[in-house]
C-alpha cells in the first residue's frame, strides 16, 4: 500500500475550508500535547481533540497497522498536515447559509466532475439574491440572480417598465 493512500478516507471526508482549518489546528494541538512530556501516550493525547477526529485517526492507525510510537506518530501528523495544505480552494458566494447536506451535494458534484483534492470556501452575501459566484484559481464567474436582474434592467428597462 502506498503510504499516501492511507490518508485517502480522512482527506476525502473534508469538504470545506473551515473543516480543513479545524483539522489543522487539532493536529497542532495533538502534536503539542503529545510531545510536551515523555510520559504522554498517543491514546491519551487523542482525548484532547474532538471525538470524531480522534476516531478517524485511530481507524487509520488500526486499519494500516501503524505503530503508535512517537516517531511514527510524528511522521503521520507531518504528512497529513502537508497533504491538507495542498487542497485547491473553490470559493462560492451564496445568498443563503447552506445546510451540511447541501454542502455535501455540492462537494460530491465537484468530486465527480473535477476530481478529489478540492474544498469549498463558502461566503454568504444576501445581496447576490440567488445563484452563486464561483471563484477558482483567480477566475471570477458570476452566476447570480443579481447579475441577471442587473443585466435585464440595463438592457430591457423600457420593456420591463411598460
Amino acid at each position, binding site marked *: 500500500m502506498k503510504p499516501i493512500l492511507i490518508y485517502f478516507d480522512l482527506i476525502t471526508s473534508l469538504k470545506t475550508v473551515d473543516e480543513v482549518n479545524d483539522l489543522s489546528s487539532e493536529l497542532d494541538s495533538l502534536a503539542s500535547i503529545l510531545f510536551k512530556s515523555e510520559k504522554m501516550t498517543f491514546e491519551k493525547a487523542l482525548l484532547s481533540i474532538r471525538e470524531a477526529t480522534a476516531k478517524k485517526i485511530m481507524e487509520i492507525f488500526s486499519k494500516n497497522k501503524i505503530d503508535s510510537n512517537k516517531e511514527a506518530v510524528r511522521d503521520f501528523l507531518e504528512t497529513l498536515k502537508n497533504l491538507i495544505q495542498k487542497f485547491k480552494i473553490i470559493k462560492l458566494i451564496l445568498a443563503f447559509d447552506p445546510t451540511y447536506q447541501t454542502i455535501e451535494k455540492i462537494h460530491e458534484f465537484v468530486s465527480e466532475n473535477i476530481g478529489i483534492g478540492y474544498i469549498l470556501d463558502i461566503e454568504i452575501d444576501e445581496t447576490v439574491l440567488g445563484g452563486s459566484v464561483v471563484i477558482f484559481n*483567480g*477566475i471570477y464567474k*458570476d452566476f447570480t440572480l443579481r447579475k441577471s436582474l442587473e443585466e435585464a434592467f440595463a438592457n430591457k428597462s423600457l420593456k420591463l417598465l411598460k
Partner: protein
Amino acid sequence: MKDFKFYLDSVSEIGFVDKSSSAIIYVTGLPNVKPDEIVIFETGEIGMVLSFDPDNVEILVFSKNPIAHGTKVVRTDEFLKVPVGIELLGKIIDPLGNPLTAMDAYKKPSLVRNINTLAAGILSRKTITKQLETGVPIVDLVMPLGIGQKELIIGDRKTGKTNFLMQAILAQTKQKHICIYAAIGKKRLDIKDAEDFFKKNNISDRVIVVACGFDDPIGLTYLVPFAAMTIGEYFRDEGYDVLLALDDLTTHAKFYREISLLGKKFPGRNSYPGDIFYTHAKLLERAGNFVTEKGEKAITCLPVVETVQGDLSGYIQTNIMSMTDGHLYFDSDLFAKGRRPAINPFLSVTRVGRQTQSTLKRDINREILSFLTISEKMQNFTHFGAELTESTKITLAVADKVVKFLDQAPLTTMPINLSLLLFSMLWDNILQNKNIEPMGPDIDKLINAYKSKPQAKNEIDQTIENTSSFNDFLKTMREKGEGLLASLRN
C-alpha cells in the same frame, strides 16, 4: 478609470491580498496578470504590478491606507496612464493627475498617455542647434546649454540648485516654452515656495508642477519623474519646446531603493537595486531634440542630483553623469565665499552647449574661460604667501571684476544679449585701464528696461547679430556701447 465592480465583471479575474509590507502587497490569484498592469483593490486603492511568480503577484500600491489581508483585487487590463492636456498648465498635481492644492475649476484632463513608453529612436532625433537661455550669465556665457540637452545639476544641499532651476524656468517661460517642475519627495513648504515664485512672476500659465511630498506614498513618489516626462512628451508633440526640471533624482533613487528592498530584490552597491541605472537611463533617454509632426521640438531635461560634502564620485551621481550631456557643479566652497550662483566653471561640463553658440558667443566663452583659468592659477599662487608681482595683482583685480559681473541676485534673470553687451563693455574698460563698471548698481533697472523698451532691445540685438567676432564687438561697443546703455537708462 472605472471602479472595482466594472473590472471584476469585464475581466473576470480576482486575487486576494496574502501579505503586505508597507507599499508592497503580495496577492494570490490574478492568473493572467501582466507586468506594469494596474490593479484595483475593493477598497478603491490603485496599485501597479511589479513582478509575479506562479504563486504570488507583487504589487506597488499608490496609497498610504493599509490594505488588509484577504482584500479582493482585480486586474484592469490597463497600464498606468497620466492625464495630459492644456488644462494642466498652472496646476500642481500628483503623478496621477490629482490636484495637490485647492485649485479653482480644475478638471482632470480626459486625454491620457502611457507613463512607461520607449524613448524615441535615433531617426526621430536631430542635432541640438539652438541655445537654451537660462538667464544666468555664468551659464549662458561660460557653460552654455542647448535646447534638448540633458544637463545634470549637481551639488551639495543648500548650494542654490533649485534657485538656478527657478531662474531657468523664469527665463524659458519668457520664451513661451512650457516648463515642468517635478518635485520629488520635497517638503510641502518647498512646493508651496515654488508655486508662490511662479505666481509672483506671473508665469504660472506656462508651468506645471508634478509633485509628491516626502510623506506621500513611496509608490507615487517613484512615479513623479515618469509622469512629468510623459506630460513633457505631450506638449512636445503639441508643438512646444519643453524644459523639464527633475528635482531631485537622488531622492528618487532612495525611494526606488526602499521599494526594491521591500520587494526583496537583491541589493547591489549602496543597497541600490541592480536596475537603478536602467530606471534612470530609460527616463532621461526620453528627453532630447526631436523631429515631430509640428517641426523640430525638444525636451530639455535638467535632472538634479545631490552630493555629500562635494563628493562627485557617488554611485547615483556618476550614473546620472554618464547619462547626461554634462553637468553644472554647484560648489559649496564658492557658495560659502558668497558666489551666486555657486557654479564652479572648472568642474562643470557642457558637451553640446557650445555647438549652439554663434562665433561671437564662442569667442566670448573662450575669452572668459581662459581668463578664469589663468586667474584661478594665480589665485592658487597667492596661497604660498609669495610677494605678488604687479601683473599678478592686476590679473587678480580684473578677476574680481569678472567674478562680480558673473554674480547674480537669486531669482533674477538676465537676457543673454544684455549680458553680452555688459560683459564686452566691462572687458573693454579693463583693456583700456578704465576703472568703470558698466552696469553700476542699477542692474535690475537695466534688465527691466531691456525687457520693456523694445526699441532699445532691438538695437542691442541687431548690433550683436551683425557682429561676427569678439574683437569687432569690442570695437563697436567702444563706439556705441555708452549710447546703447544710455538708451536703456533713459
